[in-house]
Structure formats: C-alpha cells, structure tokens
C-alpha cells in the first residue's frame, strides 16, 4: 500500500499519450491546435478554481491589510491584525480551539482506529457494521446536532445521556450549560458524526497488511497487543500520520458544533472557536477585513503546524 502524495506525477516507463506526443514530423500548427483542444477542455474548471479558490486566496491576504469604510478602501498596514488580537475573545477562541483539537485527537483519533481493528477481525456482520458506522456521516450536520442539542444533552434527567447515566447510577451532567462539559460534549457529538470516514479508510489500510507478518509474529510468541503494536501500527503508519494531520486541520476549523449546540459562544465563552470568531467578525460586526486577517492567522498557524508535523514524521523514517 502506498499513499499517493503527488498523484500528478507521471510514472516512468508509461506509454506516452498519442495526443501528447506525435511523430516528429508533426507540424507546429498541429501541435498548437492539440494544445488548444486540451486547454479548451480545461478552461471551465480552471476558471472556477481561479474565481473561487486561487483568487480568493490572494484576495484574503490583500484584504487583511485593507479597511473598507463606506465603500472606500484604504491600506491600513497591520491595523486589522492588532485589532483582532486585542479582541478579548481572540485568545479564548484559540484556547478553546486547541482544547477541542486535543480532545478530538484523544477520542476521535484513537477510537476509529480501534473500531477498524475490531471490525477487521470479525468474519460476520461486516457489511452491516460498516453501514452503521458510516450512517451518521450521511446525516446533514445540522440535523444530527439538533438531535444532540435537544435530546442527548438535555440538562434535565429527561435527556438521553442523563437518563443513561442515572440508570447506571452515575452522576448526571448539565452538558452544554456547564462550561467544563461544553468541549467534551462537542467532541462526542463530532466524533459520532464524523468517525465513519476514518473507520473505512483504516479498514482498507488494514486489509493491505500481509497475513504472513502476523503469522511470523505469532510464531515468535507475540500476543494480540504485541501484534497490534509491532505489526498493525507500523504497517499502517503512513495512513495514520496522514489521518492525524487531516483530522487536526478539520478540527481546527470547528464551527457548526458551537453554532448549533452552544448558540455560538456557549456558557462563559466555553465554546467560542476561531472559525466562529471569523464568522462573527465578518458577518455580524461588519468587519470583513478583520475576519480576513483572522483567516490569514489561522492559515499561518495550520501551515506552521503542518510543517513541524511533516518534519517530525520525516525524521522518524
């Protein structure tokens, strides 16, 4: 199994395209025409990328150094950045977002991997279990979150989670109304909604592990945990690293969970996330430039994190 990091690269020894490489006597006109045909096929998608992806990327950076008031745009240097950073919510939002990311790593990252290992060992009901795990991924997040908000996290004992806790003689919780529980509650909801994709990807990776490796480990007297530690994890190391990275980038963009479960900020600002702050500044405080600056800060943090992460994983190899 190999992860395709650079999918566009042409493999050596591959027969060349009859359209791309013609016999040498081909005229220049013909070559130009073939290239034009190729670009004609590309143009629609390229325009969409240019308008809605490449251009906004640059525009975001430019906007973050400008201020638009009453239709007049001026350059303001780092003003937007200082204003955003001076906002008392800024540090709360980062603290909350990091906390969510770490909690989601502990719960949301390990759980799908072990679920995949478990499902991979079962010889029965595999299809059914796979459908079950992936089903929540298909729900519109707003629907699933209203379910959690109104039924699961009902702070009275009529709530689903509290009723279960009470039946098990465990202490009940105020869930979203208690600042300490806000983040764990959001991580539970988010993991339930999103883990299906990770489970399926891990399952596919596990199926690519050669059986002989387990055979050999068993002959050497390795127990189940040792086999997981010495065979399963090293064999799936690349996909594990990739998924950790993808998950962190996804969880750092935490938005709809606080918006629906906590009405945005939550009890004592315990739910405010960076993405929610971007939304607040951009679309409620009429400060699109400040929101753009916050977006750039988020991009820099994520890019910096990715660079460090790649460096660390590269060193291990």
């Amino acid at each position, binding site marked *: *199994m*190999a*992860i395709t990091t650079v999918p*566009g690269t042409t493999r050596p020894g591959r027969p*060349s*395209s*009859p*359209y791309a490489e013609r016999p040498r006597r081909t005229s220049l006109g013909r070559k130009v025409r073939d290239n034009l045909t*190729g670009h004609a*096929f*590309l143009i629609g*998608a390229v325009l*969409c990328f240019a*308008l*809605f*992806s*490449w251009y*906004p*990327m640059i*525009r975001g950076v430019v*906007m973050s150094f400008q201020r638009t008031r009453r239709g007049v745009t001026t350059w303001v240097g780092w003003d937007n950045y200082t204003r955003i950073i001076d906002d008392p919510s800024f540090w709360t939002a980062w603290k909350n977002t990091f906390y969510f990311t770490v909690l989601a790593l502990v719960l949301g990252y390990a759980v799908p991997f072990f679920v995949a*290992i478990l499902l991979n060992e079962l*010889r029965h009901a595999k299809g*059914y*279990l796979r*459908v*079950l795990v*992936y089903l*929540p991924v*298909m729900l*519109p997040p*707003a*629907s699933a979150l*209203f*379910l959690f908000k109104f*039924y699961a996290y009902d702070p*009275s*004992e*009529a709530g689903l989670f509290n*009723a279960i806790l009470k*039946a098990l003689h465990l202490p009940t919780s105020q869930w979203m109304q208690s600042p300490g529980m806000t983040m764990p509650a959001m991580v539970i909801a988010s993991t339930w909604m999103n883990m299906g994709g990770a489970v*399926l*990807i891990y399952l*596919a*990776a596990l*199926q*690519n592990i*050669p059986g002989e490796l*387990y055979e050999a480990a068993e002959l050497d007297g390795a127990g189940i945990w040792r086999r997981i530690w010495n065979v399963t994890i090293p064999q799936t190391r690349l996909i594990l690293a990739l998924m950790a990275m993808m998950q962190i980038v996804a969880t750092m*963009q935490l*938005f709809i969970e606080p918006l*629906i479960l906590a009405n945005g900020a939550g009890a004592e600002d315990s739910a405010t996330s*960076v993405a929610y702050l*971007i939304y607040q500044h951009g*679309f409620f405080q009429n400060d699109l430039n400040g929101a753009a600056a916050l*977006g*750039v800060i*988020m*991009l820099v943090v*994520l890019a910096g994190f990715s660079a460090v992460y790649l460096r660390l994983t590269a060193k291990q190899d």
Partner: protein
Amino acid sequence: MAHDSGTRTLISHAQLRRGRGKAIYWTLVAVVVVGFTLVFLGPLYWMVTGALKSGQEIAQTPPSLFPQDPQWQNYADAWNNLALAKLLFNTFYYAAGAVLFQLVLDTAAAYAMSKLRPIFGNAILAMMLATLMIPAMVLIVPQYVTVIDLPILHINLLDSPFAIWLPLVANAFNIFLLKRFFDSIPEDLMAAALIDGATALRTLWSVVLPMSRPILGVVSIFAVTAVWKDFLWPKLVMPSPETRTVSVGIYAFAGGTPMNVVIAASVIAAIPTVIIFLIFQRNIMSGLTTGSLKG
C-alpha cells in the same frame, strides 16, 4: 466459520475455530453487533420517535422508550410551518445543478490532464491539488466578497444558484479521483480512437465515459451529499427565505419553533441522504477509500 477465503488478520482463523476461541469470537460478534446498533442506530431511533412525543412526554423522567400517544401532528407542523417542501426543492435543485456542473467541467478537465496532456497541464493540476491544503474557513470571507461582486464581470451572485454550483466545481478531490481513473484507461484505446479519426471530444464521449460509469457515480453522489450537508456557505450566499437550503431553513426556524417540531424537521431533512446512502453504500464506501489509498 462461513469461509476461510479471507486473508489472515490479527488473529488466525484456526484459533477462532477451536472451542474456547469460538465461544469468545461469537460473544464478541454479539456484543459488537448489539453495541454498534445501540450507538449508531439508537440515536436515530430516538430522533424519529422523540419527534412523535408530546411536549409533556419529552420532558418526563425517565424518558419513555415508545411514544405513548404518537403526535403525527409534529411532523405535519414541521412540514407546513417551516415550508419544508420549498426548502427540500431548493436543496434538490442545488444538488442536481452541482452534479451537472461537476460532471461536465471536472470530467472535461480531468480528461484533458490525463489524456490530452496539453502544455502546463501538470502545473495546473498541481495548483488545483494545492487547494486541498487550504482550510475552507480561511477562504470563506474572501470567497464571499468575490461572490457578491465577481471580478471583471461585477455580478452579484447572492441568492443565485450559481453561487453554490460554481465554487463546487473547484473541487480538487473530484478532479483527482477522475484523473486517477482516466489514467487507468489504456493508451492503446486512445490510440485506436485516434487512428479511427475520432476527435478528442468524441473519444471522451464514446470511449472514456462509457468505461467510467463507476467513478462518475461516485463523483455524483459526493456532489449531492456535499450540497445536502453543507451549512455555512449556503447560509451566507442564500440569505433570503425563498432560496434557503433545508439545513439552513431549519436552523433559521429553530429559535421560535417547539423542540419536537425542529427535530421532526431534522428527521425529514435527513431522509434523502440516508436513502441515497442505503442505495449506493457500496459505491460511496469504495469511492471514499480509493480516494485516500492506493494499494
């Protein structure tokens, strides 16, 4: 054991067939099946039946397992008060358009980069794939600003379905899936079509597309579910009540609507994607894993 054909995993088949191993195995299967059903299907059951309970019943402790007096009125209220028919129609319309735009433009682009390979094709592909690294939240503000005043054209796309359709075409993951699939189509077939005098378009239509039905299906399903699940972008670019998607519409009404009616509406909103999933689950799951792994 049903069959031995599978490859060996963590625990050997032989071990599971012996007396004690067999007992443990079957206990585990039972525990996992019951546990997963409770964890993943339980909340959905709770949602569907909860929406049938009256306001008093939902507040009672301990909660009832079955609705004592099913209030079908909650579903009817959700349908009528939230104008769900209109919201669902909007969402279907956006999803259908998204499928059409992505199939036409992304397929053409992937075909060009895989088979026609014009000059700078690889550079364009790299720039497209680079967008996978940019978090969506970072782009939300400049994208919004672009949509309310398109550069050069100066058109405002707010409340226009194009504000949903066109940004979705810029989907590097789909292009990557399609290109990878087209790469696996033998060059000999391309050469044969060329010798027969087929144009590039004709080759795409008569040779490549008929072979690519599975991947086109996967891309279409992803397009539909992306539109159905998206929240923030449609909330921003479809501000009027008449153009909202179903998720945004329910959110907009959630404040002033009884809880059970909101849940009833959420159930109705989830039905289409659940049905799509149950029908196409094989394609969806294989598309998901081929996108991330290559084995």
